């Protein structure tokens, strides 16, 4: 019938009126994120609280945005030492490729989504600073610990 679409539209909006708002009052109320939501990259730690990163640089090479950077030094016995693990969260597109690429499960996509800052400098984060890199064997569950 001519005009039935209009009536249908009216019915839909009236039904909405009785359904009540679906707005989540954001700063006061928050939705729980789905488990696989991808937000800022964060390092992972082992049971003793040491970072699991081995400084293999795979993530650094993998990142399409070039926002990860590892400053690594080597001690005399050849063990790697992480001076700084720098992450430019402001330029990260949360693609998760770094996490997928990491063979040691040393980083994760966290659920931290409130990323706005007042200071531009805060958009560059140092994830790890001045720690020994996990040795490859230990990270793989080896017996050298």
């Amino acid at each position, binding site marked *: 019938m001519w005009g039935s679409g209009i009536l249908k539209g*009216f019915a839909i*909006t009236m039904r*909405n009126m009785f359904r009540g708002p*679906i*707005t989540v*009052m954001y700063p006061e109320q928050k939705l729980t994120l789905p488990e696989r939501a991808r937000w800022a990259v964060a390092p992972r730690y082992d049971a003793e609280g040491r970072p699991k990163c081995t400084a293999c640089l795979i993530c650094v090479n993998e990142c399409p945005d070039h926002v990860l950077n590892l400053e690594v030094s080597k001690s005399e016995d050849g063990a790697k030492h992480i001076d700084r693990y720098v992450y430019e969260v402001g330029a990260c597109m949360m693609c998760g490729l770094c996490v997928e690429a990491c063979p040691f499960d040393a980083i994760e996509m966290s659920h931290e989504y409130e990323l706005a800052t007042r200071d531009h400098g805060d958009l560059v984060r140092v994830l790890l600073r001045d720690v020994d890199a996990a040795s490859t064997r230990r990270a793989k569950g080896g017996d050298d610990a």
Partner: protein
Amino acid sequence: MSALGILGRFAAMLVLLLVNGVVLIYMLRKVLGRLHLRIGPNRVGPFGLLQTTNDVIKLLTKEDLRPDSADAWLFNIAPYLIFVPSFMAYIPLVFGPTLAVTNLDTGLLLAFALTSLVPLGVLMAGWSSNSKWSLIGGMRAAGLQIAYEVPLLLSALGPVMMAGSLDPARIVAAQSGVWLGFIPRWFVIPQILAFVVYAIASQAETQQTPFDMSEAESELITGFANEYGGMRFGFMYLAEFSNTFIVSAIGTMLFFGGWQLPWVATPAWLAPFVFIAKTYTGIFVMMWARGSLPRFRVDQMLSFCWKVLIPVSLAWVVVWACVQRLWPVVAMAVSR
């Protein structure tokens, strides 16, 4: 009437207009919000009640800008030309058996005459802004409102014929009592077709979605008003809401028995509340339409008016005139 009495009445009209403006803007935001599953204003004051007052303060304190190339004289008076008629149109409204600004034998005519002055101001605003978007908005408003004036007036003729008067007070009075013992004598029942035409035409007359091409947020960014700021814009905005109130109030008087409650006699003190409640119900329906329908195209709109609404309302006037003339004859023949 003494000069003081006249001033007092004008003050009352102004207060009513301002209060209406503030309440209606808040109501519009809340209603549109709820229709779209949102909450609407909720931050300023409890339930966002102070949002409109804050907006008014903002408009009052804003810089009054005029584009260099605008036609200064026309640009400055256009908002008042839009505002004053919609202010004056409160004159013929009948709020109760004894409560009206003044009693006019041709009150209805005055109301329609005043509302039809609005497109002039709109066109003036659009032209004098010297911006193509404003001009497009102004031209659309003129074309549209002049076109929709015709069915609006024609649809009012049915109730006028039934009441036999152009005086709103008498039209309302003619709707007291019941038909067949239980149907309230509201003209909407026999005049349902005229009412539908009136509802559509008044939505267009007040430039509300789906007929808001002259503002057309998405293409013209408020059209004719887009070079205006501060209180000049405030006047246009206020006029728009007061026009909404007026068409709804006239509709209430023409079709829904004005200040009268159905079935029972209305005490004089209750009458204005009944009238306002009915008017606001009408406004709610207009907002409901506003929140439900997308905007028409200009050509669709104009052809709808000239090819559907005007013929229908013209035919209705003719049909109703015949019915009204023949009814006593038929009734007499039947009763014999």
